[in-house]
């Protein structure tokens, strides 16, 4: 059984360092509005109810097999059209959502919702065609052709349907790592085209919208509103950040084998309102790097003096970063992420870091108020980065720090009894976990078994 080694290890005279009163770094608090996951889900649900109400109000009876099929097609179609707008809104990088719900959770919702939309759309297409075919006494294929050829806006809708099916298939392949992340990412933009193409037939053929000004206006508001969010937060806000703050690389330093830190400077950085625990998407305007934007967490509390990120060479991109020259301009988007001091509601805080997951926790370890304990897990001793910094912080603020090294897999240090022993009063802690998915799961299981309530366990995955 692997174990946790405390810092400092037993002193020679048998005395451990006494706890000095907590000195907390100045808090960077952004004052913006944040939307928590619960209320966001309720709002999305209410929207769905309103959309079903459109159908309910417009339908007087469901008669016969044709009626059942056609109406099932209408409801699924309406819901698919609604969900499509919601899914795009979730990915629009709206700060209230990014800071309140968190990017990793938004991404999970989006992925789940995406599959659901493809399912709804398929159900919609099949049941409407079938229902109309029964009404008209036609064969389904003839009916399908008639609908595509003669109904208004149906060519566009057919194209949208094929696009969405294609994107769905590509995402499934991407999940199985058969195609590259970049390819998947770029093809995903066709979702916008699909939403645009599908919009026409919703109003032109949707019985719920015919002659109903209010419903039409509501639908336009939904789609134009989402388009405005995308245009502002995905296109214009990053450009504004670029022009306003003029971020540049100040220095690149090696931290450990394959791990580098990048110091970033710029103008009026305090107005970025970045918080410890958050990340930016970084696009370095240098040869071979400018075309991809990658998310990296701030590895130190952001201040007017500069930002710092720390990157492990996991792929080609992060390996190339080591060659960045000071002065390179940066096109960054952010700050994003809900993994901040806002989540804390108790005085005692436990941070659990795995590997490069230390980066946001390193920033939180310095800046969170309260009594802190950091458990830092890595495969080998050499992979532990920031040792000096972490130990300095631990001494300066009287925080507890424990390391554990060893291979992945069973027999790791995440065990309810072990954690309870290393962290006295574990149940009364807020816990932040950041690390590889496997480790995060093991840590959460152990914490739950040790009696830490779910709402006090906060985790962020850096693999999205």
């Amino acid at each position, binding site marked *: 059984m692997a174990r946790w080694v405390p810092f400092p290890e037993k002193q020679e005279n048998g005395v451990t360092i006494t706890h000095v009163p907590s000195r907390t770094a100045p808090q960077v608090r952004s004052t913006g509005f944040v939307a928590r996951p619960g209320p966001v889900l309720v709002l999305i649900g209410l929207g769905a109810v309103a959309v079903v109400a459109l159908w309910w109000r*417009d339908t007087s*009876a469901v*008669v016969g097999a044709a009626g059942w099929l056609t109406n099932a097609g209408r409801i699924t179609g309406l819901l698919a059209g609604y969900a499509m707008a919601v899914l795009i809104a979730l990915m629009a990088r709206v700060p209230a959502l990014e800071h309140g719900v968190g990017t990793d959770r938004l991404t999970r919702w989006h992925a789940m919702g995406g599959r659901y939309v493809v399912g709804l759309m398929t159900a919609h297409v099949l049941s409407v065609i079938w229902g109309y075919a029964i009404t008209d006494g036609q064969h389904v294929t003839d009916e399908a052709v008639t609908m595509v050829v003669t109904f208004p806006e149906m060519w566009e809708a057919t194209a949208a349907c094929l696009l969405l099916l294609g994107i769905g298939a590509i995402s499934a392949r991407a999940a199985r790592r058969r195609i590259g992340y970049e390819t998947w990412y770029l093809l995903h933009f066709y979702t916008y085209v699909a939403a645009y193409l599908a919009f026409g037939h919703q109003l032109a053929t949707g019985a719920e919208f*015919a002659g109903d000004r209010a419903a039409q206006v509501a639908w336009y508001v939904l789609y134009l509103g989402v388009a405005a969010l995308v245009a502002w937060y995905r296109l214009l806000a990053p450009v504004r950040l670029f022009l306003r703050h003029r971020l540049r690389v100040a220095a690149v330093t090696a931290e450990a084998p394959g791990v580098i830190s990048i110091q970033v400077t710029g103008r009026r950085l305090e107005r970025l309102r970045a918080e410890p625990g958050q990340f930016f998407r970084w696009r370095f305007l240098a040869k071979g790097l400018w075309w991809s934007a990658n998310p990296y967490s701030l590895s130190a509390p952001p201040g007017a003096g500069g930002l710092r990120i720390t990157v492990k060479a996991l792929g080609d991109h992060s390996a190339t970063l080591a060659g960045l020259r000071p002065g390179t301009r940066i096109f960054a988007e952010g700050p994003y992420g809900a993994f901040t001091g806002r989540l804390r509601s108790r005085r005692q805080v436990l941070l659990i870091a795995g590997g490069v997951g230390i980066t946001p926790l390193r920033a939180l370890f310095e800046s969170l108020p309260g009594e802190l304990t950091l458990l830092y897990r890595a495969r080998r001793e050499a992979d532990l980065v920031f040792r000096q910094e972490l130990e300095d912080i631990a001494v300066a603020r009287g925080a507890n720090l424990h390391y554990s090294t060893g291979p992945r897999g069973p027999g790791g240090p995440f065990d309810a009894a072990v954690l309870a022993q290393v962290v006295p009063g574990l149940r009364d802690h807020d816990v932040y976990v950041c690390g590889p998915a496997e480790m995060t799961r093991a840590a959460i299981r152990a914490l739950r078994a040790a009696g830490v309530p779910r709402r006090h366990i906060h985790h962020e995955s850096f693999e999205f």
Partner: protein
Amino acid sequence: MPIRRALLAVLATAVGLVLLLSFKPHDVSQAAQPPAALAQKQSGTTPAQGSTPAQGTTPAQGTTVTGDPADTRWGPVQVAITVSGGKIADVQVLQAPDGNRRDIEINDAALPILTQEALSAQSAQIDTVSGATYTSEGYTRSLQSAIDRAGL
């Protein structure tokens, strides 16, 4: 776990859908809508046969008011109403889209339903017929103009 969640989502959606649909009336007699009116199709222009016994059986005695033609994506729709005793006793379709086979099929099915709806509602506030959205819209507009003109 994700598989179980996906199955759950599919199941919940299907159950919700069936429940929603089942709450609506399924009996033709309860609904002032489709097949009841379709049954009248063969009766052609003879108005309101049987189903609206309250109306005068001799609509020819009433005055006929023609509505404005209402343009739709597929062509104009124009109706005329026969007013008798301050009520709409009959609706005649003067023109409807007939540009292709599909239009004719749709309108053969939809127009009698719309007429039936108009007669029972005694107004242009009637439900759209599924699959014939444009015709329904044009019909309603032309009917409304005729009603306005007749001062009903």
